[in-house]
């Protein structure tokens, strides 16, 4: 720490940081544009000017940029010096010369960093009298809107998109006051993290195109803190709603997890909640019925027959637990296929035994050598890919450290390290997006990927089981060995136990951390809960041991072959489905109950890191939609806290899930945390011509949040932040004011409870089940799953923006005599499909790919041998 004097007051600042960082951390209001806590300093906008004095006798001082000046011990600066105050106001005037002042029709209005900074500098009158420059606004696809005329040339978009996220198709073109930030030509932004431009851009150049379709001002949205449900990583979000529809997702900073950024599936996939295919009312034999009638029918069925329940890895712990309680633990079955369940159980087992632990996403960024075994990270756990793009900078950054370039001096560091990348080795069945930054890649069959892992482990520790020479293994071993923080990434994507075991061996052999992926938002949670295997549910029905089947938020056609699911549903007398969207399951159910999504319910997910995190109901729907755990409730349960308490008793291993967020009794200064901003307008005005009386806001027995603008006005703890806001900070940049130190943990700690930690004593021994070398078969193809960020996830595909980008059913093969686009017949054990061919030359010989999670292919057990026949 360093003592820095600002306007005569002394402050303790981080000496490894710059003055802007220090001032903001100290809660001082100093305006800025080009700086971003995740992107560092480049000194472009000149907005954070301060006066720096040589010593206490210097009364004149000189103008410096706070972002470009180290917070060195004894530094003396003035923010309030009249000359720099005038300079900062003049910078705003300069930025505004060409800005269209279209705030009333701009989506950014009311949460615009440019507006905030303009007010902060006090600049209010523009003397410019000439025409403004205009640009062509590009169509950047269905997710991000482009309105270049508003641009203030801060360069944050390209620095984020190119330097941070590794994108290539967005750039700065031309020069002077006509720099154009866009693509070379109109077209969909290629980077999977393009949505962050919406938050990175300080004004309305890049805005949320999905929000635009149902636009509402920030202050008219009702927000709740949430957890993204579209992969297993558990990124923290804030969800905004107005008039009964979800309007958008914003990033909710969690230092340990997602930091400042989300992936596009997570940010834009929410629109399935507004889908016309939403199940909004209970359906009894296809007819809409009242909630009471539905509940009676459910009760009657449970009383009269023998019911079994199938849970879901995309439903909350609470909903799974409610079903488990309702049918009894012995009659509760896993919502995952047996293969998935086994693989996830293995991952948890490996992590529980240790000694390797699973890192947080933030810790991944600090890892300096990475081996990926079998995971298409960008498409399976997207935000992790963004973290890996930072990991590969760790070793090169040592160059900058040696040269004593402060690490926040972003361009200085980049000039010094240029394109150098640290070790990243990727072994996958097919080429992945991260290959472009990999040291080396290995595209092979799952068994061969596992063999590589086993070989690396052996190269690191001769005690690990050996196998013959495997190319790359010794190189990878060397890289991991020489790293300070090695990391191994594996998961269930290839449906291979051997890959997970090989990854565990490597991690054990070198003392690396082990990051596992999980396909769905509560995969880990449901696995930790435990359940009978899904196949046993099928068997129970087949054996006549159940006449009623309750299926919780789960499309079984994605878990098992079509014929098997058809047989199951036909053989069951009474099928009860709880879900969000109409699907093949709901069509065949006797009773369909409208299950609340993350937007209409509260609950807890456990992420792939093993972190239990709470999501909160955003709004009270006008329909009968409610949390599944409420449909399946027990008489003694009155609130979420009751469910959590019951779960803690019944399942001690999940007891700590209660700590994921404060309970419903939590109050700040005696008040609840308001879901709306105190500027929420029109609550009474909308119907003021009829009635000005204000209805009582709905109660929320489940959380310490209120469906209201009234409540505690200070910053709530991290798990309860509905939206980022501070006086003078209306944009997402208000995040600064929630952190202890800029870019560091949230005040009061980052939310979430880690549920899976390695046992300190109970180490494990090496796995030895080394598979044999993959042998291609004549005339047959090994079908492997290929993952798509847009397409492989179930619910997000019902969001129009995502659906537009989603992949369609196809079979990927490596040339042979097949032609791109031609129709073929793919036959495997679980079915026969007519599919168009996509040529993928990156697939190894003898292998073919099916898009994962895409119906009707999703229920197929993979990997599987198949024949591919040309349709003549």
């Amino acid at each position, binding site marked *: 720490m360093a003592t820095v004097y600002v306007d005569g007051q002394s402050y303790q600042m981080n000496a490894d940081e710059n003055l802007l960082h220090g001032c903001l951390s100290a809660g001082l209001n100093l305006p800025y544009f080009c700086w971003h806590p995740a992107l560092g*300093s*480049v*000194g*472009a*906008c*000149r*907005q954070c*000017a301060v006066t720096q004095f040589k010593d206490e006798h210097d009364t004149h001082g*000189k*103008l*410096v*940029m706070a972002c*470009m000046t180290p917070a060195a011990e004894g530094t003396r600066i003035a923010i309030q010096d009249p000359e720099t105050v005038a*300079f900062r106001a*003049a*910078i705003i005037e*300069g*930025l505004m*010369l*060409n800005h269209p002042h279209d705030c009333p029709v701009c989506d950014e209005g009311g949460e615009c960093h440019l507006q905030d900074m303009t007010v902060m500098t006090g600049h209010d009158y523009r*003397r*410019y*009298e*000439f025409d403004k420059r205009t640009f062509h606004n590009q169509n950047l696809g269905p997710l991000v809107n482009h309105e270049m005329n508003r641009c*203030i*040339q801060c*360069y944050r978009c390209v620095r984020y998109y190119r330097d941070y996220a590794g994108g290539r198709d967005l750039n*700065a073109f*031309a*020069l*002077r*006051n*006509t*720099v154009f930030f866009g693509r070379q030509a109109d077209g969909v932004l290629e980077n999977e993290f393009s949505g962050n431009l919406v938050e990175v851009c300080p004004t309305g150049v890049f805005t949320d195109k999905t929000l635009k379709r149902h636009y509402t001002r920030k202050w008219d949205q009702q927000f709740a803190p949430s957890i993204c449900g579209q992969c297993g990583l558990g990124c923290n979000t804030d969800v905004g709603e107005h008039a009964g529809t979800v309007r958008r997702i914003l990033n909710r900073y969690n230092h340990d997890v997602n930091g400042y950024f989300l992936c596009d599936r997570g940010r834009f996939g929410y629109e399935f909640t507004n889908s016309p295919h939403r199940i909004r009312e209970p359906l009894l034999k296809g007819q809409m019925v009242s909630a009471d009638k539905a509940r009676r029918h459910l009760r009657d069925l449970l009383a009269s027959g023998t019911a079994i329940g199938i849970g879901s890895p995309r439903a909350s712990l609470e909903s799974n637990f409610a079903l488990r309680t309702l049918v009894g633990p012995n009659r509760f079955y896993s919502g995952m296929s047996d293969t998935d369940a086994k693989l996830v159980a293995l991952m948890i087992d490996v992590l529980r035994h240790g000694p390797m632990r699973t890192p947080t996403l933030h810790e991944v960024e600090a890892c300096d050598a990475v081996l990926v075994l079998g995971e298409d990270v960008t498409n399976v756990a997207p935000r992790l890919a963004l973290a890996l793009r930072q990991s590969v900078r760790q070793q090169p950054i040592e*160059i900058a450290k040696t*040269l004593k*370039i402060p690490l926040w*001096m972003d*361009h*200085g560091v980049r*000039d*010094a*390290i*240029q394109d150098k990348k640290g070790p990243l080795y990727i072994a996958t069945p097919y080429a992945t997006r991260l290959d472009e930054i990999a040291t080396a890649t290995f595209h092979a069959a799952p068994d061969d990927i596992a063999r590589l892992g086993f070989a690396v482990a052996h190269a690191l520790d001769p005690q690990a089981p050996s196998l013959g020479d495997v190319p790359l293994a010794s190189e990878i071993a060397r890289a991991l060995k020489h790293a300070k923080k090695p990391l191994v990434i594996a998961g269930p994507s290839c449906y291979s136990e051997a890959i997970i075991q090989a990854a565990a061996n490597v991690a054990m052999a070198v003392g690396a951390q082990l990051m596992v992926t999980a396909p769905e938002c509560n995969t880990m949670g449901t696995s930790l809960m435990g359940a009978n295997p899904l196949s046993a549910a099928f068997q129970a029905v087949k054996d006549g041991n159940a006449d009623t089947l309750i299926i919780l938020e789960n499309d079984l056609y994605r878990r098992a072959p079509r014929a098997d699911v058809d047989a199951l549903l036909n053989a069951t007398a009474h099928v009860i489905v709880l879900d969000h969207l109409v699907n093949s399951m709901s069509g065949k159910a006797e009773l369909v109950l409208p299950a609340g999504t993350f937007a209409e319910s509260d609950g807890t997910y456990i992420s792939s890191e093993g972190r239990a995190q709470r999501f909160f109901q955003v709004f009270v729907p006008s329909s009968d939609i409610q949390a599944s755990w409420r449909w399946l409730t027990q008489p003694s349960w009155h609130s979420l806290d009751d469910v959590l308490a019951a779960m803690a008793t019944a399942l001690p291993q999940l007891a700590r899930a209660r700590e994921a967020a404060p309970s419903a009794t939590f109050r700040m200064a005696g008040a609840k945390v308001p879901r709306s901003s105190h500027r929420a307008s029109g609550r009474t005005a909308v119907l003021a011509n009829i009635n000005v009386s204000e209805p009582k806001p709905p109660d929320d027995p489940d959380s310490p949040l209120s469906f209201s603008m009234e409540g505690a006005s200070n910053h709530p703890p991290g798990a309860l932040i509905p939206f980022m806001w501070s006086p003078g900070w209306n944009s997402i940049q208000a995040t600064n004011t929630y952190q202890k130190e800029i870019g560091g943990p949230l005040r009061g700690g980052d939310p979430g409870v880690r549920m899976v930690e390695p046992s300190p004593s109970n180490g494990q021994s090496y796995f030895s089940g080394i598979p044999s070398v993959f042998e291609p078969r004549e005339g047959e193809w090994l079908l492997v799953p290929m993952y798509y960020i847009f397409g492989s996830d179930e619910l997000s595909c019902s969001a129009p923006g995502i659906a537009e980008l989603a992949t369609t059913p196809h079979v990927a093969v490596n040339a042979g005599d097949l032609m791109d686009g031609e129709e073929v017949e793919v036959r495997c054990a679980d079915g026969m499909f007519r599919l168009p061919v996509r040529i993928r030359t990156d697939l190894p010989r003898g292998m073919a790919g099916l898009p994962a999670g895409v119906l009707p292919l999703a229920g197929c057990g993979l990997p599987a041998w198949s024949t591919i026949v040309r349709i003549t």
Partner: protein
Amino acid sequence: MTPLIEKPLTKNMRPDGSVVDRKAYEQAGGYQAVRKVVQHGMTSNAVTDAVKDANLRGRGGAGFPTAKKWSFVPLGKDAPSPTYLICNADEMEPGTFKDRLLLERDPHQLIEGMIISGFAIEADVAYIFLRGEYVLAAERLLRAIAEAYDAHYLGKNILGSDYSLELHLHLSGGRYMCGEETGLLNALEGKRANPRSKPPFPPVVGLFGKPTVVNNVETLCCVPHIINHGAAWFRALGRTQDAGTKLFGASGKVKRPGLWELPMGTTIREILEEHAGGMRDGVTFRGLLPGGASTDFVTKEHLDTPMDYSAMATIGSRMGTGTMIVLDDQTCPVGMTWNLMHFFAQESCGWCTPCWSGLGWVERILKSMEEGQGKPGDLDKLTSQANMWGPGATFCALAPGAAEPLHSALKCFRDDFERHIREKRCPWR
């Protein structure tokens, strides 16, 4: 002293404008300095010391001591490799055409200077970053480089010594910012020619992240002569405390626009009246920009100032590139300022706000004044913008360079600016 020695930089140049080829250059004593350095056991430090003793200062305009720049480069076996030497031949300063002469007429002088300078900083690779429009210079340089390779002045083990240097010619895509030291590095790396943040400075983190020295053409051309004739001789060439000769030039309505190699410290009046022949008949001198577009206007009371780095500073201007642009009474000073600001506004890279925003605004205001649309208050706006281009306010020196003619024009020709607004027209049109 013989006349030959008085004009070392231009002594070989032929009146017909043809190039001095290698043979002719060698006959005139060329490449002796290289031999002295690489074959006769001079150390790199000894070369740097000689240049330091000679008090050679950068001829690109800033006047930074050359040897000092070199001294920041890490030397020895443990130094990062490769080290780069770059000749900044991206001559784009308005009114400046001095490097062009050196490049077109005597390219071997530059190559020899680069070999010796490269030796001093232990450079492995050298680039000449040439203004793209200098087509003739490019042709002649390419031929000269090939000749130098043939004679083993370049390449592996130069003249059988341990020193090796590869030399490449790079033609600029054509932006003023490419001539800024770090903008040049970015351009050479294939990136936008935006300036870089300093520190790190190029001698530590330069081209492709490696130690790099960027020197001006004229600076490098001085080096062989310092090695051949010694530091004391070089210092004595200057009339004032600044050493050597300097290419001075004049453009505008003078009788004999041109370029002359003269002792450092020659007075402005001498250059203007003796060498350029004074003003054309019928026009009267009003002022001049002493060294390119980014220097302050100098008016008649300062004509006896010696052109060197320090004396010009005392009158609130700079020597800059030493090639003056002369303003006469038949030319509108507002129009001239507009022309200059138009140039700077066009060439702003668009990186820092005061530059890209302010220059565009200033240019529009001056244009409107010239078109009779000037308004009361415009001069305050101009002044306030020029004040935004002060030290520390901008990212690089482009806008501060623009501030110099703008500030000084507003001071020296204030009546003319006011007349434009008062009369709602340009009195010269």
